[in-house]
């Protein structure tokens, strides 16, 4: 197909660079400098999508971010798919492949169109609202058809081949938008010496100047754009970011920018010749001042069949002609409420095609552009509007009539004009989106017939977005904003910059026109679309107001107005105007809309940046990690730590399962000697003359008598009496302690200690420091532990001189060490701490000497089984923030008679914590020795009760014990301690009901003799 709509001269495309592309399987050609949209229009492609709800044919309407219809799925390969790309914002490249987002199986002949022909009976206004209010099954019924028929973009099915990154910036002045106001602002601020970032969402900077009929200093406006960009590019204090959308404006002048770096060149960065570089980038900018120069979006008029391909915005028509040398039709009818839109007709005529008529809703338009049109021989019909478009898959005519806007009626005879394009303009809406991201509300400006940004601290709006539509005033406004922003940042030398001379035009005032009246009522006339992307009609809004939805926010939820990926950029104000008319109120009385980030869709890649794959979350390794890897460990994530889970061996050519390995490891510890890498335990060094007093306040038990060389287990509660962490603390000296915490709780406990010290007891002289990574911890445990360790240390390990809960300085394998005689297995145990970088040496020495004792490395799973056999809790597994030390039966660790009211004490005497039927910590012995209960399973007292059963507790830990040769569990059960020996029931989802006996949680060595040997 040839580029039938391309004209020979003009435009900013490079006709020497022909680019091939494919749309919906059809091959086309365009030029370098095209967008996908301009190239499609050049090739006369009318239909780019099927509408979401009615499956109506839709064409390109706009030329920028506001485009509601031309939303495509981009990408030639399964791994390069990008959904929700606006063709108007996609630079054309050779080999580009795009498909319509909606319109299965094809846009020309859509099987979903039966939905449309049912006249909307399938999804009437209020469909979503009513469907979601109904039982969920309603939505389930509709969903699959809706999703299948009207796709919302497809996620890629393979991994993205590209990389993305983030950049962080601080700047004095962040200028958003590089049109006339933004360029002038950037120039003024930059010349004053401020650090400036200028971003613009389009392929080229220049904004409206790129398709302007105006001259600056007597020459084409684009000349001034080139000069200005050249100067800015040469300044060291300026960063220019073209193809970069300011997508979010957050608290305290934090702006997020989405830069598309290679997406205009090829499918992937590599294909674009940028191997190893990012495809897109998210800039995170903390700006001193923001100059918002985001311009305006033209408002389309709302009339019957205004969604037929061939209905376009007047400004978009000018844009395609002047910037891309594409005339999107042959015969134009322009319907307008203002002078500015006349440019479209003049541009159309100059491109050599026929302007059938300009239909102006005003009685006596008389501005310079109006005169120019009349002088050029264009027919101007006043007091009138296009009330309906005719045609099937493309506009073939426009029905035009005189209208009375006050009474909202058609007053004259209806004329039908033959045409293939209807351009409309109902005025210009400032692009207030970013300003409203901050929470401020746009303010209605009656003179402007639009919302302007509310006041935002640290932001100055300039140009079109501030309601300046005259080019000269826009430039001056931008320069003033840039100067003021620089001054706010302390660049007092900011001076006026020389601005190019502009022509002043006489303009006749615009009239307020949103929905155009029709001979029939809105409900009976052909559909008049307000939100093209979501198929919201004027009739739908009228119905909503009749059903009592009076606030625009309710109307929006009822009709889905503005809920598309375009956030209703074109439709929202028309929708508000229609609701206001129906309710007989003013637009600001009906409400305003608050836009949310992001302004346009952002790819997940840019949001994620490098935080994926290996870099998704930091990993922490112990000093012994490499040994674990080499010895075949399976790993478990504990917080960010990688901990050995178990060490499977290969027996008779078969690798052990988890359970086989754990059974073997458990027996090795109970019968011989095992070793655990416990380096991940949190370690906090506590020093100061008040350290001991402080410990007494944050732990439930007593610390006053703990002598140097001794260790004590402590419980830490919150002030609500609930257990938050546990661990041992060793007295290193009178003013010096070493606290251990759970692996996952380390950071939280340190902050907890700081909190109480800094906020409640600043008078205490005590200091905390994390030493978790400084020390490696090796737990040698089992009946043979003493024999093994004695081969590597001169220290006297005798049970009398080195008692249970003692610690000593020693050397192990000639390395200075601290040895702690504490046990988490119930067996004789020594925890050897050495400086982390000596750990591997010591570990290997232990294995050299341990071979004859069959020294067995074990992981977290075996550690869990061994401690559970002893009834030792794991905070966060056996507790959940609602368990007190009393509930755990740990009264021995509560110092009620300590002088200071320690954290948690008072709450332990609240009525709720004293209840006798609280869930208490017990052991469970399943009646069937082969049963291992499910952790988390609920416990009931009556196994035959009908559902819903009375839940009396739950299983917290459950394992098979190789030593006991049966399954066992730990649990919390209401009043459990008084129910020893009783039978409870554990019903499962498959109908099985397990029986178990309530027993002591200590299953092995209840007297605790083994750890004292």
């Amino acid at each position, binding site marked *: 197909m040839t580029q039938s709509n391309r004209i020979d001269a003009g435009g900013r495309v490079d006709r020497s660079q022909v680019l091939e592309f494919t749309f919906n399987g059809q091959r086309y050609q365009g030029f370098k400098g095209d967008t996908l949209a301009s190239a499609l229009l050049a090739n006369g492609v009318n239909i780019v999508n099927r509408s979401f709800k009615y499956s109506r044919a839709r064409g390109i309407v706009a030329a920028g971010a506001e485009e509601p219809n031309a939303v495509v799925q981009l990408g030639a390969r399964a791994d390069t798919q990008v959904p929700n790309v606006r063709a108007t914002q996609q630079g054309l490249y050779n080999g580009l492949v795009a498909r319509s987002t909606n319109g299965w199986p094809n846009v020309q002949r859509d099987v979903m169109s039966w939905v449309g022909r049912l006249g909307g009976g399938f999804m009437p206004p209020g469909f979503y609202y009513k469907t979601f209010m109904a039982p969920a099954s309603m939505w389930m019924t509709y969903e699959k058809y809706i999703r299948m028929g009207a796709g919302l973009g497809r996620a890629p099915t393979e991994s993205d081949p590209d990389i993305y990154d983030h950049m962080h910036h601080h700047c004095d002045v962040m200028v958003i938008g590089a049109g006339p106001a933004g360029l002038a602002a950037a120039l003024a601020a930059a010349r004053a010496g401020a650090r400036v970032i200028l971003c613009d969402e389009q392929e080229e900077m220049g904004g409206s100047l790129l398709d302007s009929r105006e001259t600056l200093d007597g020459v084409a406006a684009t000349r001034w754009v080139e000069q200005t960009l050249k100067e800015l590019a040469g300044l060291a204090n300026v960063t220019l970011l073209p193809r970069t959308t300011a997508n979010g404006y957050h608290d305290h002048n934090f702006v997020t920018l989405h830069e598309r770096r290679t997406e205009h060149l090829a499918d992937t960065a590599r294909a674009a010749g940028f191997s190893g570089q990012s495809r897109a980038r998210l800039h995170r900018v903390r700006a001193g001042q923001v100059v918002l120069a985001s311009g305006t979006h033209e408002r389309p008029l709302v009339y019957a069949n205004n969604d037929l391909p061939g209905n376009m915005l007047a400004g978009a028509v000018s844009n395609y002609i002047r910037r891309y040398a594409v005339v999107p039709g042959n015969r134009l009818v322009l319907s307008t409420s203002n002078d500015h839109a006349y440019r479209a007709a003049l541009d159309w005529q100059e491109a050599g095609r026929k302007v059938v008529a300009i239909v102006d809703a005003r009685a006596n338009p008389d501005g310079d552009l109006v005169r120019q049109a009349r002088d050029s021989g264009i027919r101007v019909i006043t007091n009138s509007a296009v009330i309906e478009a005719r045609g099937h898959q493309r506009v073939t005519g426009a029905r035009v009539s005189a209208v009375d806007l006050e009474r909202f009626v058609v007053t004259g005879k209806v004329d039908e004009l033959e045409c293939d394009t209807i351009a409309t303009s109902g005025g210009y809406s400032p692009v207030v989106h970013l300003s409203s991201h901050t929470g401020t509300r746009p303010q209605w400006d009656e003179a402007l017939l639009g919302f302007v940004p509310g006041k935002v*601290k640290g932001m100055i709006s300039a140009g079109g977005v501030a309601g300046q539509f005259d080019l000269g005033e826009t430039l001056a406004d931008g320069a003033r904003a840039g100067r003021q922003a620089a001054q706010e940042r302390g660049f007092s030398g900011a001076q006026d910059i020389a601005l190019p001379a502009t022509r002043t035009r006489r303009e006749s005032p615009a009239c307020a026109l949103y929905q155009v009246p029709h001979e029939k009522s809105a409900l009976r006339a052909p559909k008049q679309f307000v939100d093209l992307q979501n198929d919201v009609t004027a009739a739908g809004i009228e119905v909503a107001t009749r059903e009592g939805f009076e606030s625009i926010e309710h109307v929006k939820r009822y009709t889905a107005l503005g809920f598309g990926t375009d956030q209703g950029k074109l439709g929202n104000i028309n929708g508000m105007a229609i609701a206001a008319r129906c309710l007989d109120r003013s637009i600001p009385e009906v409400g305003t809309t608050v836009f949310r980030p992001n302004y346009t869709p952002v790819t997940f890649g840019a949001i994620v940046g490098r935080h994926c794959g290996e870099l998704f979350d930091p990993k922490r390794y112990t000093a012994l990690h490499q040994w674990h890897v080499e010895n075949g460990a399976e790993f478990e994530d504990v917080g960010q730590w990688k901990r050995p889970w178990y060490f499977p061996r290969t027996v008779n050519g078969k690798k052990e399962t988890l359970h086989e390995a754990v059974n073997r490891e458990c027996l090795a510890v109970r019968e011989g000697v095992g070793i655990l890498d416990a380096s991940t335990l949190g370690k906090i060094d506590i020093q100061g003359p008040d350290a001991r007093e402080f410990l007494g306040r944050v732990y439930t038990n007593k610390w006053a008598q703990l002598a140097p060389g001794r260790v004590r287990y402590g419980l830490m509660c919150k002030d609500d009496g609930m257990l938050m962490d546990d661990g041992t603390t060793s007295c290193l000296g009178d003013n010096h302690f070493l606290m251990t915490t759970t692996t996952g709780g380390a950071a939280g406990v340190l*902050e907890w200690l700081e909190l109480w010290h800094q906020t409640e007891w600043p008078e205490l002289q005590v200091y905390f420091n994390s030493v978790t990574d400084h020390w490696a911890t090796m737990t040698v445990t089992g009946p043979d532990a003493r024999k093994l360790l004695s081969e590597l240390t001169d220290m006297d390990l005798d049970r009398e001189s080195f008692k249970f809960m003692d610690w000593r300085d020693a050397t192990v394998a000639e390395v200075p060490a601290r040895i702690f005689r504490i046990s988490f297995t119930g067996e004789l145990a020594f925890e050897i701490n050495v400086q982390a970088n000596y750990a591997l040496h010591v570990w290997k020495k232990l294995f050299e000497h341990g071979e004859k004792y069959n020294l067995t490395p074990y992981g977290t799973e075996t550690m869990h089984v061994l401690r559970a056999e002893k009834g030792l809790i794991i905070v966060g597994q056996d507790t959940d923030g609602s368990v007190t030390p009393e509930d755990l039966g740990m009264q021995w660790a509560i110092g009620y008679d300590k002088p200071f009211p320690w954290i948690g004490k008072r709450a332990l005497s609240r009525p709720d914590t004293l209840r006798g039927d609280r869930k208490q910590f017990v052991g469970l012995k399943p009646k069937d020795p082969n049963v291992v209960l499910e952790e988390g399973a609920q416990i009931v007292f009556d196994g035959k009760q009908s559902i819903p059963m009375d839940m009396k507790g739950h299983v917290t830990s459950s394992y098979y014990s190789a030593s006991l040769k049966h399954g066992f569990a730990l649990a919390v059960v209401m009043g459990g301690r008084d129910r020893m020996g009783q039978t409870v029931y554990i019903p499962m989802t498959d109908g099985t009901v397990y029986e178990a006996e309530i027993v002591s949680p200590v299953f092995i060595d209840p007297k605790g003799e083994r750890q004292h040997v």
Partner: protein
Amino acid sequence: MFHIFCPYCQEHREEEEFHARGQAHLMRPADPDNTSDEEWGDYLFFRNNPRGIHHEMWVHSVGCRKFFNITRNTVTYDILETYPMGEQPTITADSEKLRKEQGVQTADGGWQTVGAQPESKALNEETSS
């Protein structure tokens, strides 16, 4: 994302470096053993949730590890002051009310405000797009 001035580090840092730790100036009863259940319950569980000026405790958790207080407007998200532990705020809901009553022009209320005084009932509704 907030930009927070740490009164100890004496500079603005990104919110990512801080943790919010709830309402500021909570007093732990001095003699818990002789505090009624109700008073203890109030201390443990009940917090203010004002619309407007609020005092919060934050910690510069991956910075200097110091706790400090923030006076923040919960409508505009404007941070009006930050001050070290043990000090009292210079700006409170009462002080702002007094300033208004005396006709003193107050600060515009922050980074985001102005729409905070809606012109109509409809404008007052929390909305999203």
